[in-house]
């Protein structure tokens, strides 16, 4: 892109090291805590290397139906991601290409829907879901989480869609491509990185959400954050088990990101629209 400088590699390393240390140390500490006894978590001097024990994992996996909750979390999170992507893609493209009276105001209102404190919404949500018979179901949680994730997806995707080449879209329309076809075949491939980001954050909304999962789900649809919060007992947090659960909860996210980051590369820029 720019003139490559011989200094860049060492400078990048110098800038990167403190950031990495700051970012990764707590992760390292959580991961090692999951293989330690609680006593050695506070050992002095701090234990960087030690003989790992797997008791924490064994306890989490035997005391809690972890697999069931993992499945619940996965279903809800994947469903949320799909719902928020599909609706967000459509609405984002609509806002980016179709102006009407009050379109700015409606767009802002979409964002306002995301601003209410969740604690305030949870009681009315509960009553609404009760009325619809959706308490303790995947659908109930899905609806709540899509509504949390959607405003961000819409706003983010508008940003990636407005800069897509309008001339190419118009040419495709004239050639008989449907508006939906234009979105799917032309705009989406260009905006792929935006979709990846929207997908990751929609997934995380559902994956990490605690309050609504606690209130809206009972036995059937309970998700992992509720389980983990249960490890924070009256007698204090069970650090080892909590860390073990957190590590297991983290892994699917890492896998998802590794898979999705293939699409995080520079989008296809259409040579056709240069100049």
């Amino acid at each position, binding site marked *: 892109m720019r003139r490559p400088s011989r200094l860049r590699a060492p400078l990048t390393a110098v800038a990167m090291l403190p*950031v990495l240390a700051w970012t990764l140390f707590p992760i390292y500490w959580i991961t090692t805590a999951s293989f330690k006894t609680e006593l050695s*978590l506070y050992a002095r001097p*701090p234990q960087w290397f030690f003989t790992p024990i797997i008791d924490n994992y064994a306890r989490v996996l035997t005391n809690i139906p972890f697999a069931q909750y993992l499945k619940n979390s996965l279903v809800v999170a994947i469903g949320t991601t799909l719902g928020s992507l599909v609706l967000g893609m459509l609405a984002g493209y609509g806002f980016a290409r179709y102006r009407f009276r009050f379109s700015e105001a409606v767009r802002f209102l979409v964002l306002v829907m995301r601003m209410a*404190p969740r604690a305030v919404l949870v009681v009315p949500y509960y009553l609404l879901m009760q009325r619809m018979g959706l308490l303790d179901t995947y659908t109930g949680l899905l609806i*709540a989480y899509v509504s949390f994730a959607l405003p961000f997806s819409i706003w983010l995707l508008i940003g990636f869609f407005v800069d897509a080449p309008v001339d190419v879209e118009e040419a495709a329309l004239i050639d008989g491509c449907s508006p939906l076809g234009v979105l799917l075949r032309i705009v989406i491939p260009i905006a792929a990185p935006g979709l990846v980001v929207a997908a*990751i954050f929609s997934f995380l909304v559902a994956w990490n959400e605690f309050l609504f999962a606690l209130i809206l789900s009972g036995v059937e649809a309970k998700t992992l954050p509720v389980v983990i919060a249960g490890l924070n007992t009256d007698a204090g947090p069970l650090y080892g088990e909590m860390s073990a659960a957190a590590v297991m909860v983290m892994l699917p996210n890492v896998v998802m990101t590794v898979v999705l980051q293939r699409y995080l590369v520079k989008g296809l820029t259409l040579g056709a629209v240069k100049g």
Partner: protein
Amino acid sequence: MAIGGAGRWFLLPGLIFLFVIDLIPLLYSAWISLFNWWLIRPRDIRFVGLANYVRLAGDPEFTRAVVVTTLFTTGAVVLEFLAGLGLALLFAQPFRFLRTLRVLILLPLFVVPVVGATMWRVIFHPEMGVLNYYLAALGLGRPPWLSDPKLALVSITLVDAWRTIPFMFLVIYAGLEVLPPELFEAAAVDGASGWQSFRYITVPLLTYIMLLAVLIRAMDAFREFDIIFVLTGGGPGTATQTIQLLNYRAFGLGHMGEANAIGIVTLILVALMCWVLLRAVLRPRAAAR
């Protein structure tokens, strides 16, 4: 505009879904905020109009919470934006191990917030925490990270930054990735410096994405609960008592009217903040066109 009137069919599904699912609970909550409703006294539910709001406006504890929340939000968002932008620019240049490091940088996002905060409390522990162990070894003393009023606010800001710098990074980075490389090539041919192409190409083209990242973070920081609750519970004293902690307390005491009023005030404050930010950033640009 390319798709014209067909646009409304793109908009409707999402908008209908959003407004049905979110607006009904919101209006319900606004309605409850007009009542004097204490769960302990179910027979004594009275419509009191705006009395809950009037009480909040005259309550020094609430005013103080607004100040604390604003300080926390401002500090966290500025720090996170600068760090996220810096990281995104760093990652926009190819270097070795980029893919691996990109995943590693994102890891804090994947830690359940409550667990992340709990682990930071272990790290911050004044006597037994790993941070103070090394600081003391270096002769820097043992700062009371969470029990000194000023330091506690800094500490929760740092933990929030730890958790959400990856968010800022990822949003801005994805925005950078879709910028057409031809522009930078042309600028380089014309002899533009790195700073010039950042200032005159990256910033204008990325304004919307950066603004969105800041908006989203600002509204989340303003409503942050988990981290503050786990780390300080609002203390020491009221040093880190944000609006959301007051809201939690009101709910906990069963004051439904007041709790919902706090929620609605939060919503109004956040909406105002976003509106001002949007206007401040987008208006001058529109005028310049």
